[in-house]
C-alpha cells in the first residue's frame, strides 16, 4: 500500500506552475497529500500554489533556499502518513513516497500510476523517475536517467534533440539507472530519511546524482520508468529565470560539484585514479578552452578543480559520512557509469566541434537538447539535405559542378603545362616564376637563417612570402612544386570556388552566383597570371572574393572576421603589396561611410588593416623606403611580361595585358550587364558601391600600368581583379530580377533571355578562347634544371656555380649553390660592394679580356661556370680563351667550365642575427595570437552580433546550425538542472 506526498517547489515559475499543478492534480492515481513550497517567488507563484493547494498546504520559505533544503523543511513538518488511510488493505504495510516536482515539470496523468506500478514490481526500487521530455517540443527526449563518467561529467546517453519513439524504453518499461533527476523523482520516505536526503552541501547541481549514488550504495535500486512521462521546461538551465542560490558562477559550481560528488562517492583506489584523471583532463580542457578563446571557461575549470582539492577537510567529512557500504556498493554503481571510451570520444567531439566552428560545447547555459532548440536545418539545406546520398549531395550542388567544369576547362587549357618529364628533371617555371625546386624545409631554412649563402651571400632577411610558401608546401607534403602547381595552375577553379562560396551571403540567387564565380575565375587577369607565372597574383586572385566576404563582416563590426581578414590580407600583401593599398583605401572609405552607423566598425577595420602591418613589419618598412617595389610582385622581373603601352580599351575592359590574355572584347558582356544593372532601381545601393569599386580599381590600374619600376613595367593585375570583383557584384546582386522579368512574359521575358545570354557570353567566350590558345606562355613545365649534375656533384659545400646566359645582347648571371635558386632567393640582396665587384668581374670574364677577373670570380667561391644552351659562340670563345678555366663539357645541353685553381672559400661573415631571431619569435607569437583570435570559437552572440546586419545574422544562424550538428558533446556535457535551485 502506497501513500504518496507530492512536493512542488516553486520559485518564480508562474509561467509553468499552473499547468504543473493541473497535471499533478489530474493524476490517475490520486495523490494522498500535496505540499507546495514557495521559495520567495516574486511573480505570484505562491499565490497560485495557495489557490490550488489551499493555504494550509503551502509553505513559504526565504528566497535563498535551495531545493534540497526546501524538501527537508517540508519533511521536517510533514507527519508520517497515517498507518491506514484506506480500509480494505488489511495486510498492507503503508509505504510512504515523496514525489518531488519542480514548478516547470508537468507530469503526464498516468505518470504516478506507472511509477508506483513499477515500484510494486520491484520491491528494492527506492527511487523512481519519469521519462523527461521537452516542455515545448513535446516529443523531444530530455532524460531517461542520468549517469556520470569517471571524470564527473553528467551523461544522459541521448543524442541532442532525439525524438522519443520508445527507442530507449527499457524491458518491462523500466530502466535500471544510476540516477534520476529530481524533477519528478519519486522516493521512498524511509530511504530519504535513511540517506538523510539531498546533501545540503550541494545546493545546486549533482545533488540528485549524489542522492541516487548513495541510494545505490545502500543497496536500493534507482529506476527510470518509461511509462511515466513528464514534460520539463528546464527553466533555470536554459536561463529562463535567474538562478540565485549561489554567488558563484553556475558553470564553476557545476564543475566543482561534479568533482566533489565523484570524489566523495568513489572508493579509495578508484578515487586516486579519478584524481589523476581529473587533474590531467582539466588541464587539457583548460587548454582547449583557451584555444577556443573562452578564458572564462578555462578559469572556471581550473578554479573548480582547485576549490575541490583545496578543502581536503570538507572532502574528508563528506567521505566519512558516505563510508558505509561505499566499497561494497561500488561494483553495482560502476557498471552504470559512462563506458570508458566516452571521455575520449567526448574529447574528439570537442576538437571536432571546435574545428567546425562552434567551440567546445560544455558550458553554462547549455542543456543538451534545448540549447539550440527551435533551430532547423533549413538555412543550410544546400549543404546538408538529411537523407540525400553523399554523391547526390555533392554532385547536386551547383558550386561543386561549377568547380568540376572549371577544373576540366583548366586541365584542357593547361595541357602543355601539366605534363612535365619529372625523370628528366624538368621544372615548372618561366615568366615571373622561378623554376620550382626544393621543399618546405629549404624554404623554412631560407626564411629563418640569418646569413644566406645563396647567390653572392647576403644578410638581408628573407621576405615574408617565403614563410607563407613554406607553410603551404608543408601542407602539400613538403613538396613546393605541388603547392605552387596547385595554387598557380589551379588558380581558376580555386578562384571560382572561392567566389562561389564567398558570395553566398551577398547574393542569394544561385544562378547569379554560378555565373559570377565562373566569370570571375576566367577573367583575363587569371589566365594572364597563369601564363606569365605570377604566383602572387594567382594567390591574391583567389583571396579577393574572400576579402570581399570577410570585408562585409568587418564593416559590420565582427572582431573574429577582422582578425581573419587581417591574416589573409597579410598573406596577400606578402605576395602583392599593392593589394594592401587597394584594400586600405576601400577600408578607409568604408570607415567614413559606416563608421558612424555601426558600432565596432572602426575597431574591426583597424584590426583588419593593422594586422598585416604588424605581421609584416620590417619587410613593409623596407618597401616603404623603395616605394616602386610596392607595385611589383613576387617573382622574376621580366619586362616582357607586361605591356607599358596598354591600350585604353584594354584597361577599361579589365584586360591587364601581357602574355596569356584574351582579346579585350571578351569581357564586353560582363561590362554590358553591369551597366544594365544601373537601370534597376531596387538594388541601387549595391550596384553603386560595385561600380564605385570598379571605377577605383580601373583608375588605379591606369595609373599603375603607366609606371615602370627599375625598367620593368608594372602589371595591373591586382587592381584589375579588384575592379572585376566590383563589376561582378554590381551585375550579380540584382540578377534575381531576371526571374521576375521572365515571369512577366512578353518583351520583358525576351529582355531577360537576352541579358542572360550576354552575361554568359563572357565566361563561355573566355573559356573557349583559353582552351583554344592553351595556357602556355612564358610559363613552362619543361624548364631544364639550371644546375648541371656534374657541377652539383663536384662542388663542395659553399662552392658556387656561376650561370651565364646571353640574352639580347646582355649577359645575365646568377650564382647557384648546389641547386637551382629557391623562390625568394632572388629577392636577397648581396652587399653593394661585393655585388659591383663581382658584376664587373663577370663582365670582364665574359668579354674574354683576360686578367684577374677569373680570380675575382673564384674568390667568391665560384668553382664552376655553366652556360645553358644555346651557348653563344662569343661567350664560349671568351670562356675557352681563359687559361684559368678548364672546359669540362660542351654539348647541346650547354657548356660547363671548371676553375683550374679554385680559390679558397670565402669565410662567411658571422652574421649578427639576434635581431632577426627575436623578430621571428615575435612574428611567430603574433601569428599564433592572430590565428587563435581568427579561428572559430564559441561566439558570444550578444556581444559580437549586436549591431549586425542581415548577412551577419545569417552567419550567426549558420554558426548555430553548425552547432546543432556538432552532436553528442552538448548532450553529454549536460549539467545538473538549475531548475531545482529554487524551482
Amino acid at each position, binding site marked *: 500500500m502506497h501513500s504518496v506526498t507530492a512536493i512542488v517547489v516553486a520559485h518564480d515559475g508562474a509561467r509553468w506552475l499552473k499547468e504543473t499543478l493541473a497535471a499533478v492534480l489530474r493524476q490517475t492515481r490520486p495523490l494522498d497529500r500535496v505540499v507546495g513550497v514557495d521559495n520567495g517567488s516574486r511573480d505570484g507563484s505562491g499565490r497560485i500554489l495557495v489557490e490550488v493547494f489551499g493555504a494550509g498546504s503551502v509553505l513559504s520559505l526565504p528566497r535563498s533556499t535551495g531545493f534540497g533544503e526546501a524538501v527537508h523543511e517540508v519533511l521536517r513538518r510533514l507527519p508520517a502518513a497515517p498507518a491506514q488511510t484506506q480500509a480494505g488493505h488489511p495486510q498492507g504495510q503503508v509505504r510512504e513516497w515523496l514525489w518531488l516536482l519542480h514548478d516547470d515539470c508537468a507530469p503526464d496523468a498516468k505518470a504516478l500510476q506507472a511509477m508506483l506500478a513499477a515500484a510494486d514490481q520491484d520491491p528494492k526500487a527506492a527511487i523512481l523517475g519519469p521519462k523527461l521530455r521537452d516542455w515545448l517540443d513535446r516529443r523531444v527526449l530530455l532524460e531517461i536517467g542520468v549517469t556520470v563518467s569517471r571524470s564527473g561529467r553528467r551523461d544522459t546517453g541521448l543524442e541532442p534533440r532525439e525524438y522519443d519513439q520508445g527507442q530507449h524504453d527499457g524491458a518491462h518499461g523500466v530502466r535500471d539507472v544510476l540516477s534520476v533527476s529530481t524533477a519528478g523523482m519519486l522516493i521512498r520516505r524511509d530511504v530519504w530519511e535513511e540517506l538523510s536526503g539531498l546533501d545540503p552541501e550541494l545546493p545546486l547541481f549533482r545533488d540528485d546524482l549524489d542522492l541516487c549514488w548513495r541510494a545505490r550504495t545502500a543497496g536500493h535500486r534507482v529506476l527510470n520508468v518509461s511509462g511515466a512521462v513528464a514534460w520539463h521546461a528546464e527553466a533555470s538551465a536554459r536561463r529562463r529565470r535567474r538562478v540565485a542560490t549561489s554567488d558563484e558562477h553556475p558553470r564553476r559550481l557545476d564543475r566543482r560539484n561534479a568533482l566533489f560528488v565523484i570524489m566523495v562517492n568513489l572508493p579509495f583506489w578508484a578515487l586516486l585514479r579519478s584524481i589523476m584523471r581529473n587533474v590531467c583532463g582539466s588541464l587539457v580542457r583548460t587548454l582547449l578552452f583557451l584555444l577556443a578563446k573562452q578564458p572564462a571557461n578555462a578559469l572556471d575549470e581550473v578554479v573548480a578543480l582547485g576549490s575541490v582539492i583545496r578543502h581536503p577537510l570538507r572532502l574528508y567529512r563528506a567521505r566519512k559520512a558516505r563510508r558505509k557500504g561505499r566499497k561494497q556498493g561500488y561494483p553495482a554503481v560502476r557498471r552504470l557509469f559512462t563506458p570508458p571510451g566516452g571521455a575520449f570520444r567526448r574529447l574528439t567531439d570537442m576538437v571536432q566541434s571546435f574545428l567546425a566552428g562552434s567551440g567546445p560545447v560544455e558550458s553554462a547555459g547549455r542543456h543538451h537538447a534545448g540549447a539550440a532548440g527551435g533551430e532547423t536545418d533549413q538555412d543550410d539545406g544546400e549543404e546538408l539535405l538529411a537523407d540525400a546520398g553523399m554523391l547526390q549531395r555533392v554532385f547536386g550542388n551547383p558550386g561543386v559542378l561549377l568547380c568540376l567544369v572549371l577544373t576540366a576547362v583548366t586541365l584542357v587549357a593547361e595541357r602543355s603545362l601539366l605534363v612535365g618529364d619529372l625523370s628528366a628533371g624538368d621544372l615548372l*617555371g618561366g615568366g615571373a616564376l622561378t*623554376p620550382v625546386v626544393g621543399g618546405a624545409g629549404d624554404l623554412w631554412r631560407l626564411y629563418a637563417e640569418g646569413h644566406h649563402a645563396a647567390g653572392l651571400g647576403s644578410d638581408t632577411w628573407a621576405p615574408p612570402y617565403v614563410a607563407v610558401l613554406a607553410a603551404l608546401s608543408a601542407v602539400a607534403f613538403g613538396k613546393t612544386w605541388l603547392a605552387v602547381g596547385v595554387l598557380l595552375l589551379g588558380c581558376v577553379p580555386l578562384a571560382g570556388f572561392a567566389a562561389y562560396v564567398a558570395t553566398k551571403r551577398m547574393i542569394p540567387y544561385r544562378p547569379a552566383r554560378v555565373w559570377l564565380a565562373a566569370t570571375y575565375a576566367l577573367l583575363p587577369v587569371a589566365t594572364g597570371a597563369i601564363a606569365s607565372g605570377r604566383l602572387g597574383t594567382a594567390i591574391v586572385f583567389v583571396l579577393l572574393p574572400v576579402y570581399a566576404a570577410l570585408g562585409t563582416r568587418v564593416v559590420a563590426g565582427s572582431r573574429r572576421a577582422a582578425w581573419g581578414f587581417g591574416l589573409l590580407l597579410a598573406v596577400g600583401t606578402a605576395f602583392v603589396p599593392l593589394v594592401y593599398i587597394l584594400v586600405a583605401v576601400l577600408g578607409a572609405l568604408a570607415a567614413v561611410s559606416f563608421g558612424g552607423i555601426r558600432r565596432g566598425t572602426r575597431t574591426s577595420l583597424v584590426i583588419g588593416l593593422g594586422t598585416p602591418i604588424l605581421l609584416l613589419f620590417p619587410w613593409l618598412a623596407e618597401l616603404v623606403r623603395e616605394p616602386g617595389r610596392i607595385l611589383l610582385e613576387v617573382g*622574376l622581373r*621580366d619586362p616582357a611580361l607586361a605591356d*607599358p603601352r*596598354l*591600350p*585604353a580599351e584594354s*584597361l*577599361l575592359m579589365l584586360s591587364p595585358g601581357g602574355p596569356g590574355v584574351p582579346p579585350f572584347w571578351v569581357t564586353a558582356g560582363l561590362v554590358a550587364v553591369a*551597366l544594365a544593372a*544601373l*537601370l534597376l532601381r531596387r538594388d*541601387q545601393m549595391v550596384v553603386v558601391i560595385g561600380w564605385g569599386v570598379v*571605377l577605383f580599381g*580601373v*583608375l588605379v590600374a*591606369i595609373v599603375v600600368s*603607366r609606371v615602370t619600376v627599375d625598367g620593368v613595367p608594372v602589371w595591373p593585375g591586382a587592381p584589375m581583379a579588384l575592379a572585376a570583383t566590383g563589376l561582378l557584384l554590381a551585375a550579380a546582386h540584382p540578377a534575381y530580377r531576371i526571374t521576375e522579368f521572365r515571369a512577366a512574359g512578353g518583351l520583358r521575358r525576351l529582355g531577360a533571355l537576352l541579358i542572360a545570354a550576354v552575361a554568359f557570353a563572357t565566361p563561355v567566350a573566355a573559356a573557349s578562347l583559353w582552351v583554344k590558345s592553351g595556357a602556355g606562355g*612564358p610559363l613552362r613545365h619543361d*624548364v*631544364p634544371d*639550371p644546375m648541371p649534375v656534374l657541377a652539383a656533384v663536384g662542388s663542395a659545400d659553399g662552392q658556387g656555380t656561376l*650561370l651565364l*646566359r646571353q640574352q639580347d*645582347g*646582355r*649577359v*645575365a*648571371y*646568377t650564382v*647557384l649553390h648546389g641547386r*637551382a*635558386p629557391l623562390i625568394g632567393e632572388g629577392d636577397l640582396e648581396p652587399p653593394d660592394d661585393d*655585388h659591383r665587384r663581382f*658584376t664587373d668581374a663577370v*663582365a*670582364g670574364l*665574359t*668579354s*674574354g*679580356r*683576360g*686578367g*684577374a*677577373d677569373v680570380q675575382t670570380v673564384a674568390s667568391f667561391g665560384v668553382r664552376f661556370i655553366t652556360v*645553358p*644552351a644555346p651557348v653563344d*659562340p662569343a661567350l664560349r*670563345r*671568351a670562356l*675557352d*680563351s681563359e*687559361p*684559368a678555366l*678548364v*672546359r669540362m*663539357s*660542351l654539348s647541346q645541353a650547354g657548356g660547363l667550365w671548371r676553375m*683550374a685553381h679554385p680559390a679558397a672559400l670565402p669565410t662567411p661573415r658571422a652574421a649578427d642575427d639576434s635581431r632577426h631571431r627575436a623578430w621571428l619569435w615575435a612574428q611567430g607569437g603574433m601569428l599564433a595570437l592572430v590565428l587563435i583570435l581568427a579561428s572559430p570559437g564559441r561566439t558570444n552572440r550578444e556581444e559580437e552580433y549586436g549591431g549586425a546586419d542581415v548577412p551577419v545574422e545569417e552567419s550567426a544562424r549558420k554558426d548555430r546550425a553548425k552547432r546543432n550538428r556538432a552532436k553528442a558533446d552538448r548532450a553529454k556535457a549536460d549539467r545538473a538542472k538549475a531548475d531545482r535551485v529554487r524551482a
Partner: protein
Amino acid sequence: MKGLIENRFGLLALVLVALAALYGAAYVGRPAPVVQRQPQAVKAPVEAVSVVCPAPGGTRISVVTPPHSEGPDAEGSDDKGPGGKGTGSATLTRVHASAEAAGAKTGKGGGSPKPEAVIDRPGVLWQREMPAGGGPITVAASGSMAPGLESAQTARDTSGTQRGLAGVRCVEPGADAWFVGPGPAGADVRLYLANADAAPADVSVMIYSGEGPVLSDRGNGVILQPGEHKAIELRDLAPSPLVMALRVSTGNGRVAAAVKVVLRKGVDWLPVAAAPSTTVVVPGIPGIAGRRELYVTAPGEEDTVVQVKAVLKDGFYALKNKEDVDVPAGSTATMDLTTGIGGQPAALVLTSDVPIVAGMVITGTGAVQDVAFTAGAQPIDLGSVVADGRSSRKQTSRLVLSAPFAAGAVQIRILPQKGTVPKPMEVTVPAGRTREVKLKPPAGSGSAFAVVVQPQPGSGPVYGGRVLDESTRDGLLITAQPLALARIWTLVPPTTDSPAAVLP
C-alpha cells in the same frame, strides 16, 4: 542633382561619363612607343694574352703590341687607351713538358725555364731568328703589352723540301679549331698540338675528306698533359684524303693547334678557318698569277649547294660557270677558280643553307712554285694586327681588303722595327669591292715592320688578308694569312645579376 540620381538613367549616365573620363585619361596617358635600346657593349682593353707559336725552330718570330692611345685614334678618343694600366711585359717561354705547368704558362713561376725573351716596349716590333729545334714557345703578355699583342712565326727556305715562305700566326689556345686544306694523301700534313695550360687537354681530331668524314679511333682521346706538345702526322690517322677539313677540338682543357702542309710544290701553314657558318667570307686572295682552288666543307649531316660569289676590284658577282659547288654532307668539295679570280685580288663570299667551312689554296708562279693558304675569316671590326711584314727589293707585303656588304674605311698604320712611326694611311673600300694595298715602311727603318689595321667609325664590315711574297730566281715564294681580329679590345657585354638567368 537629386533629380539626376532619382532618374532611372541618371546613374547610368554618371557611370558612363566616369568611364569616358577614365578612357580619356588612359588614352592620353599612353606613352609613346619607346624604341627598345639595345644595351651597348662597352669596349675594354684586353688585359692578358697568351699565344703559342707552334714550331718556332729555324723561323723568325715577330712579336708586336700596337702603341696605345696616341694620335687621332678615333677609337681611343673617348675610351681610355688600351693598356692604360701602367707597365706590362710579354714573355717568351718554351712550352715546358714538366709538372710545373703553371710556371710554363706564365713564365714567372719558380723553377720554370728561363724566359727566351722579355719584351716590354709596346709599339715596337720585336723580331728574332730562332735556332733550329726546340719546342713551341708561349708568348704571354699582360698589362700594357697585352692589348693587341700579335705574334707570328715565319720560315723562309730557298731550297729543299721546305722551300718556300711559311708563316703562321701564333695561335691562341682554344677548344675548337678548324683547318681546311690539302689532305695527307697528296701532302705531308703535320698537326702540332701544344698544351700550355695547367689542366690536361683531351683532344679529338676529326677529318672531313672529299668522300666524307673519316672515322678513326686514333684521332680521339689524345691526352696532352699540362706543358706537353705533340706533332701528329695526319697520314697516320687518315692516309687517303686528298683534300680535307680538320677539326681539332677538346673535351676538356684547351689546346694550341696548328697544321703545316708540305706539298711537292711548296710549304705553308694552314690558317685557322672561321667556325662553320652559313655565310663564309674567304678574304686575302692576292693579285698574283697562279692557281686558285677553293675547298668547301659541310661538316653537318645535310648535303648542300654552296653559292660562290667573288668580291673583286670591279665588283661583287658570281663567276660564270662557277656559281655554286655541291657539297655532300660531311665531306669536302673543291672548285678551281683560277680562271675566275687568278691574277686579281679577291675575296670569296660563300653562302649555304647549312653551316660550312672554307679555305683556299694559293699557288705562286715560277719554275718551282710555292703555296699559300687562306681561309674563312671574321670581319676585323675591332681592328687587326699583323706582326710580320717585310718589304725589300725582292720582298713585297700587301694587304688585300674587301668590303663585300658595305663600304669600308680603314686606317693602316705601319710600325717599323726602328725609327719613327709614319703617318697612318686612310684606305676606303667601296661596297662590294676589293682593294690591294702594298705596304712600304718609310725609308731607313729597315725592311721589317708590323701593320695595324683599324676600321674607321661608320665603316662596314671589312675582311682582309696579308700576303707576303718574295721573288727568287726559280719562282715566287709566297705566304698568306687572313686578317684576324686583333686582341686589342674586347667587347664587355652589359652584365646583370638576374635570377631570371636560370630560365631558358
